């Protein structure tokens, strides 16, 4: 093990300060903000709703569509392209992860649209997006098998660390974004780039699972807080 120090002084297994809040946009059926330090993401859910183009609809489950997008001023250099190949690939893997968590068979012939905007990007945006989107789905009352808790883990100077920020992401030897349905012990998103041995990946996934469990708790607390404030409005709490 090297003596790598993290730029922001965190312990290797320490995630950045998390902020989670639901019901932040009035028009959406569900919405959430999720922040990991300076990584700030907002997600809105519209649906389940009817599809305009019927021929895409499925008669036995809901179609899930996901658009992961970074606003032009969210990055160090202004992002000038409206929709990059990176955004298209990430939209696809987020769609597959979120689809795995939704009880789609309950909403046939409908679509669930999940729109994610990265407002400020400081690394780990795709996992922050999954957390925001999963909270927004819960806020919209969409039935799910479990909440998704996602986190990144990587290797820098031979050291495994969780929740990489932009600097660490740029300078890492390898990087693994991963998402769990924690109660079901299922992985719903997994990507990796860089170079690692199988043993290192094993350890990394263990660290990731621990960090994801913490995020899972934050998410549950956030939803509980939201529910309580609704109940208070109706004088039920």
């Amino acid at each position, binding site marked *: 093990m090297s003596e790598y120090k993290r730029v922001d002084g965190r312990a290797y297994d320490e995630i950045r300060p998390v902020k989670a809040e639901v019901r932040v*946009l*009035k*028009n*959406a059926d569900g*919405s959430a903000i999720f922040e990991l330090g*300076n990584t*700030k993401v*907002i*997600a*809105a859910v*519209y649906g389940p*709703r009817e599809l305009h183009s019927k021929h895409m609809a499925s008669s036995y489950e809901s179609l899930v569509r996901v*658009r992961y*997008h970074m*606003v*032009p*001023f*969210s*990055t*160090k*250099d*202004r992002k000038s392209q*409206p929709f990059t190949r990176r955004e298209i690939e990430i939209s696809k893997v987020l769609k597959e992860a979120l689809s795995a968590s939704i009880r789609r068979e309950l909403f046939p012939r409908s679509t669930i*649209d999940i*729109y994610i*905007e990265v*407002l*400020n*990007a*400081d690394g780990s945006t795709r996992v922050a997006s999954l957390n925001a989107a999963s909270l927004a789905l819960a806020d919209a009352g969409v039935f799910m098998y479990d909440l998704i808790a996602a986190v990144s883990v990587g290797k820098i100077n031979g050291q495994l660390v969780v929740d990489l920020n932009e600097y660490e992401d740029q300078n890492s030897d390898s990087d693994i974004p991963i998402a769990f349905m924690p109660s079901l012990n299922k992985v719903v998103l997994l990507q990796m780039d860089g170079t690692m041995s199988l043993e290192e990946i094993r350890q990394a996934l263990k660290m990731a699972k621990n960090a994801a469990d913490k995020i899972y708790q934050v998410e549950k607390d956030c939803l509980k807080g939201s529910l309580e404030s609704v109940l208070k409005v109706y004088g039920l709490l």
Partner: protein
Amino acid sequence: MDNIKYNVLIPKIRQKFILNTLKENKRIDNRSFYEYRALKIRYGHLPNADGSAEVSLGNTIVLAGVKVDITNPFPSEPDKGIIIVNAEFPPVASPDFEPGPPDENAIELARIVDRGLRKPEIVDLSSLCIVPGQKVYRIWIDIYALNHDGNMIDAAGIAAVVALMNTKYKKFTFVQDKGLVDTGEKAQLTLKNFPVYVTHVKIGDHILLDPVLEEESLADCKITTIVSEGNLITGIQKSGVGGISLDELEKIMQNSINLYQTIKENIQKEVSKNG
């Protein structure tokens, strides 16, 4: 020719209710005809943006981000910086907005916001020149709707102005044989005036300030008047499919000028409160 629906369809029975309410000199959210909705402003909260502001006008939320980079000046204005205003109505903001390039409503909004900044030259463009004819700063203002409940123009105008007010950018200087060199310092934009975008709608014979989405969708037409310090009008845009008389226009312009100080102070109060 029009892929995003800016307005909503309102059922006949709801239309009747809104119109009846107006006849009793009331609005559906209990405001008076010339009353603004509650204004909330956050700014400077997005570290990757050089300037930023999030403005809530009731349930309408608009985000503006400023990025500054360096480019060649236009040949016609070799010693002036460049300002570009873009706007997007992404699908997060409304069930009726669809992914895709900005539609006519978003483009119109960007061009109205631009109009209030360009000809009256709110930003001192000469101060944005580094090497005349060669290198100038370019100010990108990106406006991003987050929740659409009517009167996005006024919210966007406030967001753009506040984002510009808190914009800090890396100061470069030109050094012989080295080219552009980062001085390590940050410069701040200076604004030469304080434009306020004031939008009224005409519904039948009624003139209403700061419409919510239902009012806007029902309106005969919508008039945005841009007012600057000194009782000056620095831009007008009529939109919507109805006509309007010169007398009604006069009334709206006069009212916009009258409201200027109040709205401006309201903005400044919010700015001094948050950040």
